[in-house]
């Protein structure tokens, strides 16, 4: 991969106590240029056929992942499987509404994932707040905080809709349009400002890495 991009300035990590700042990484994310031509196509094919979902049930959407993982809908046959650690996962399924407390963990888990990483947003709540539009504790739009590749509307979306969503995600990946990681790096300051606006007790590094 080409590393021509300028490496951004180190982050301040003001949320951390001064004596802990040295313990954490202060590098900001940077963009990665995709490989060219057939190499990238091949890589994208592999990425699309091996989707590892982060096992993090952020909201009620997690309940429809169960049937999907098990024998009735069996997502393994589409190359999709759950993975317990963000380091090894490539897909983050946002299961509906995200409370502020969970959003903090979502951001953290998302940043810990290795790129290219993809986000599938389940349910109405991720699009425009859903039925918790007037709640003091849930965000309305997940795309304010992390980049999203595919939205699946529904409350709850049926497992079939989820499968269809994953197929759509595969198409997007193969077409090379799932560049959420770069988008996040490009608009890092904007995303971070949005995150910090709602996460009032920011006591983690600016970029969890």
């Amino acid at each position, binding site marked *: *991969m080409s590393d021509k991009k300028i490496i951004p300035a180190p982050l301040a990590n003001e949320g951390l106590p001064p004596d802990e700042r040295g313990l954490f990484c202060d590098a900001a994310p940077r963009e*990665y240029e995709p490989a060219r031509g057939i190499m990238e196509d*091949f*890589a994208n094919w*592999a*990425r699309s*056929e*091996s989707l*590892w979902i982060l*096992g993090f049930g952020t909201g009620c959407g997690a309940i429809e992942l169960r049937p999907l993982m*098990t*024998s*009735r809908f*069996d997502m*393994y*046959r589409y*190359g999709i*499987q759950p*993975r*317990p*650690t963000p*380091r*090894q996962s*490539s897909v983050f399924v946002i299961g509906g509404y995200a409370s502020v407390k969970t959003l903090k963990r979502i951001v953290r888990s998302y940043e810990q994932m*290795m*790129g*290219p990483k993809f986000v599938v947003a389940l349910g109405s709540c991720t699009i425009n707040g859903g039925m918790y539009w007037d709640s003091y504790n849930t965000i309305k739009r997940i795309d304010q905080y992390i980049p999203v590749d595919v939205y699946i509307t529904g409350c709850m979306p049926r497992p079939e809709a989820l499968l269809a969503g994953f197929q759509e995600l595969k198409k997007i990946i193969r077409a090379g349009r799932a560049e959420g*990681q770069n988008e996040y790096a490009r608009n890092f300051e904007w995303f971070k400002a949005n995150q910090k606006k709602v996460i009032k007790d920011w006591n983690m590094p600016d970029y969890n*890495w």
Partner: protein
Amino acid sequence: MEPTLLGRIGYAFLSLFVITNYGLLLIGSMARISAKVQGRVGQPVYQPYIDIIKSSVKRNAISHGIMFYLGPVFRLAGGVGTYMFIPAVFGSVVFRNFSDSGDLLLVMYFIFFGQLGMALGAGEGGHPYSAIGVSRGLAQMTAFEVPFALSVIAVAIQYGTLDINAIVGAQQGGFLNWTLFTNPLAVVAAIIAFLGMSMHNPFSVVIAPQEIPIGPPTEYQANLLGMLQTNRAIFNGAKLVLYMNLFFGGATNILVMVVKTFLIYFINVFVGQAFPRFRTDQSIRFFLGVPTLIGIASVIIAAV
């Protein structure tokens, strides 16, 4: 005709290539068989390939220092090393690898080596689950090594050699010559240890996702993970070939090897699908109990 050293190296690479692919396909097909038990279709047989490619083409990776890198490298070295000193097919030049007299000792060493290297690397990850996984892994390994070592000793005593090729050779001439029938106790102890070695249920506590999100490899990602996955295929292949050689009469051609190793591996799945997993203390207690006694008995039988 004895090949030159260069030729042997070339053959070893070929052999490694074959065993890697075989290992991957074996994992893929076992996943499909497990899926069948679970009432589903299961992933494609070639899924492990895609997973490895996917892991290798990740755009970024994190590091926790040099030891962290060395973990998978050691592990892979352990896997390759194990395999490199086992003759995969008896009498075959290509699949003879670097087997020579006394290779059994080297193999025993390499089986440990990977695990230890991994422990070092994973410990660097700084993740508590890695640390717990490592301690569990080492503890359990120590436990299953006891019956395994006993049965290997029994075999060594029985055949009077530490040369795997010789052991295989001694088992030729009909299946009744297999260790399976000549010293069944050693085989039983070894098979039970094998269950622990391959970290299938009920001995999967090392990587139990429900408890310690997959344990030692928690922090590994990208090409390091790809390395671990590749190693899994090679290491599995190596262990299977070793078991086949020690206890099931080895293989005179590659087809026999495939069938035998497949069946040996299937024992894992057969048991694994039926049982939940032991806690570490339970599995240690288990290995140090009946299997160890069986192992001792097999040694005694072999000795007298």
